[in-house]
């Protein structure tokens, strides 16, 4: 049997991302990856903090001063939000993995809950942290 000869045609390309309208679910999916990647880099801050603590008071005081400064606090605040968002996004994945939350309304509800929940948790954590001091 002879092999089928196919005409060479340009492969069809799938439409590119930018032509799609943004939706909640798409935005939260993208955000899960962005926050995961940000946390990946942010772990370096944890290394700096712990190694400074193990290195002695001079190193630690410098790092503590930085994290206590306005920029340092802004970074920690953002870190908290990114972490909470990624955590809730992960829990959303677990709900899907268990087979729930795929219909239109719940999909949308979960996507919105991720954003609203992460902002709420971040504010609550910082309010408690500042009040307890």
């Amino acid at each position, binding site marked *: *049997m002879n*092999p089928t000869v196919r005409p060479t045609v340009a492969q069809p390309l799938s439409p590119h991302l930018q032509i799609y309208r943004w939706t909640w679910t798409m935005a939260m999916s993208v955000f899960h*990856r962005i926050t*995961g*990647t940000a*946390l*990946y880099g942010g*772990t*370096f801050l*944890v*290394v700096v903090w*712990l*190694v400074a*603590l*193990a290195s*002695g*008071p001079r190193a*630690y*005081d410098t790092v*503590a001063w930085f994290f*206590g400064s306005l920029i340092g606090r802004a970074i*920690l605040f953002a870190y*908290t939000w990114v*972490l909470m968002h990624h*955590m809730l996004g*992960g*829990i959303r*994945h*677990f709900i899907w*993995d268990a087979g729930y939350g795929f219909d239109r309304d719940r999909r949308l509800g979960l996507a919105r809950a991720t954003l609203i929940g992460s902002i709420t948790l971040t504010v609550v*954590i910082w309010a*408690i*942290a500042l009040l*307890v*001091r």
Partner: protein
Amino acid sequence: MSQVDNRQNTALSMRTPRARVKGLGASGHGAGHFWLQRLTGASNALLMLAFVVIIALMAGRTYPQAVALVSHPLVSIILILAVVSVTIHMRLGMQTVIEDYVHSHGLKFAALIANTFYAVAVAAACLYAIIRVSLGGLA
């Protein structure tokens, strides 16, 4: 019926002849990555909430007080578990991201190696520091 050899370039493939004969591809361990990502995701959720509390308690402490907090056995153990869980999770997660976006063979290879090095270096530095602090003698 003619046979079509649709195997990958066998000169370049790292797949063993036996694996090729079995023809199962990645099945069997294909879900391992997926599952470990979920498992460490779940442990991350618990451990990172504890981590946030620990960080909040660190604020405004003097050096001896900070050392005292981290060297508390419960805090040390939670931090160690968090480091192990997070570094495994972030390495797997970044591997997925690299595989999705880096298509050049050589670059992908380099990126995957760098990813592992980063995760292991982060884990080693954190674990060293936690153990160094908790074994005492610093403050």
